[in-house]
């Protein structure tokens, strides 16, 4: 009897499937499973103690979790919108540059080259109430004579963290939107000009629809980034003081590694992922609509 022979496509796909299973599916399945257990890192045996939906039920009534959830959504909204606006502005300015555009593009990407941990340290010191450059500048300019507690007051700390996020990632938007601007055919703009459109109308009805798909791609990427914001916040405030700047992933990180409650943390993480899925779904729909509008063929 001959051994059954696998068809060529199956054979060729097998390595990829095995690698994917090893690095994605198995860990994913294990973490999903552990979210139904009382798994504590310090007690390996608890990995087998299945408690079904207890973790998820206690998340439903966990006020701290939902506050962190809400704060993350707010950060997403604020950071994405501002990054979009600033990135669009930057891209349009750079596109206008007739000389040194390459240098400008490289310069623009500088913030992306820093590790988020270092960005966190940098902004932590800038916003330090006593020795930080921000307060120092404000005091020297005579705008205030108080030491503004940037990283202590909940609202101010939110602003400080947003600024750090926006500083480090606006260039993602700028680069992608710039790509859109450069790829855009010039005829429609010339036609609009000939037809007597104002610059605003040209932008609103010609340029903007063309770059919109690029903006939505950037939005999708960044929404995933911000929804899992961790490193910058970890360094700047570590979710504190007294939980005033807690975001989803600082909470998950603390629960998992600080409190060693890995099962609970995984459950939180799965609930948090819903947020990312919702944003991704929303932006992809917008992207599809925008592409249809300009009749894109890609």
């Amino acid at each position, binding site marked *: 009897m001959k051994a059954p022979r696998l068809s060529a496509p199956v054979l060729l796909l097998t390595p990829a499937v095995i690698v994917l299973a090893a690095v994605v599916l198995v860990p994913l399945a294990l973490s999903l499973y552990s979210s139904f257990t009382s798994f*504590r890192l*310090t007690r*390996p045996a608890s990995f087998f103690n299945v408690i079904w939906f207890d973790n998820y039920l206690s998340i439903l009534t966990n006020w701290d979790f939902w506050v962190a959830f809400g704060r993350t959504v707010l950060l997403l909204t604020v950071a994405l919108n501002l990054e979009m606006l600033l990135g669009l502005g930057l891209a349009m300015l750079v596109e206008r540059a007739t000389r040194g555009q390459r240098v400008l593009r490289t310069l623009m990407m500088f913030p992306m080259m820093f590790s988020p941990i270092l960005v966190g*340290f940098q902004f*932590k*010191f800038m916003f*330090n*109430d*006593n*020795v930080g450059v921000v*307060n120092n500048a404000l*005091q020297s300019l005579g705008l205030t*004579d*108080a*030491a*503004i*507690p*940037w*990283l*202590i007051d909940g609202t101010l700390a939110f602003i400080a963290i947003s600024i750090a996020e926006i500083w480090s990632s606006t260039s993602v938007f700028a680069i992608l939107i710039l790509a859109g601007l450069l790829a855009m055919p010039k005829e429609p703009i010339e036609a609009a000009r000939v037809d007597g459109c104002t610059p605003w109308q040209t932008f609103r009805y010609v340029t903007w629809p063309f770059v919109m798909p690029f903006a939505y791609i950037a939005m999708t990427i960044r929404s995933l980034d911000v929804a899992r914001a961790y490193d910058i916040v970890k360094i700047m*405030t*570590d979710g*504190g*003081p*007294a*939980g005033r700047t807690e975001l989803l992933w600082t909470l998950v990180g*603390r629960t998992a590694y*600080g*409190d*060693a409650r890995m099962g609970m943390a995984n459950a939180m993480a799965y609930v948090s992922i819903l947020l990312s899925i919702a944003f991704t779904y929303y932006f992809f729909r917008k992207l599809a609509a925008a592409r249809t509008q300009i009749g894109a063929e890609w």
Partner: protein
Amino acid sequence: MTKLLAGVSAGVIVLMVPGLAAAQELPGKFAGVTIEAKLIGGQQYEGLYNRIAEWESATGAKVNVVSKKSHFELDKEIKSDMASGNITWCVGSNHSSFAPIYEGLYTDLTPLIPKAEIDAFVPGNIAASTIDGQLVMLPRAQFDVSALYYQKSLYTDEAKKKAYKEKTGNDLVPPDTWEEVARQAEFFAAPPNFYGTQFAGKDEGVVGRFYEMLIAEGGEYLDKDGKPAFNSEAGVRALDWFVNLYKAKAVPAGTTNYVWDDLGAGFASGTIALNLDWPGWAGFFNDPKSSKVAGNVGVKVQPKGSSGKRTGWSGHHGFSVTESCANKEAAASLVWWLTNEDSQKLEAAAGPLPTRTAVWAWDIEQAKSDPYKAEVLTAFQEAAQHAFPVAATPAWTEISNQIFPELQAAILGDKTSKQALDDAAAKASKVLEEF
């Protein structure tokens, strides 16, 4: 006669016992023995390991360093070794703050090391290396405790002295109690340009500071049954010290977000009068390139709390021998070698504080030509005598993570001290129950 003989032989046995206890001549001979070791890595720690080769040629044994990693990596590795029961190595780097976690892993060194050698260490360091009556490690010259740094010029300013005397009726001298620190801090503070003092305000930093203040106020962190006991009257007094300074704006408003780097930068900026801090900063504070207070830094032993006890949260590195080690004598000899006088001198010469009394004296003698360094070392030597480790619970880190947001809530005025401590105790109890 029989009685006499019995008496004599008993006497002989008694005489022999110390001889037995000092079982080995150090470093001893261990030809053919191989000791596997897991050591802490990093520039600051590795200079010492050059001395391993000398031990090998003195004893004929071999050392195989199976792992050399940062403290946290090593900690993870050791924990997974413990979980899998796979302890095939003999010597491990240890730390006083983490030693309680490795319950049952390391052997008692008392029978393996001559008593005179153990007595040559600073008693506080030996106490901090002893868990449940077992000496689980020998301390190396990598010791940390905080002493009080201050700006000298504040105490020579005649106008300030006069004003302070008028305001409080006391002389303005570097403080010796925490109550005095608070009083002087409020007196010196002139926000937003100058503050009386500052403190670590998040993570383990604020918990450690609260913990030592609690001890200095006569309180207990955990009671004898291992239950949280810090929400006592002493606990409220300890926490109120932080709360009141914050309320009086005698500390920077951002202090609840500070950890060590922020605190170091703060004192070096010249905007802080008094600063309880670690020995590692001494050079930085007095270096004109990094510090605006260079040349103006005084250091003295950390102040006392209302119980008369000084603060003294401390930690030190050391080496331990595993319980499952096949050749404990050889392993203990290596541990002794890495912590003996010559080894400690080698490490202390690079800056870190020693843990042997004789090396302290040597270290201070070496610094004679540098008055600042001599002042620093003298202050820290005294500080070391009052040092104590973190509460001996394997759950220290987990408890700290639960407590610090509550301490912050009290300091920021979101909760009263009592309420915050009660909430913290409830959370800590839950952690301990589940531990």
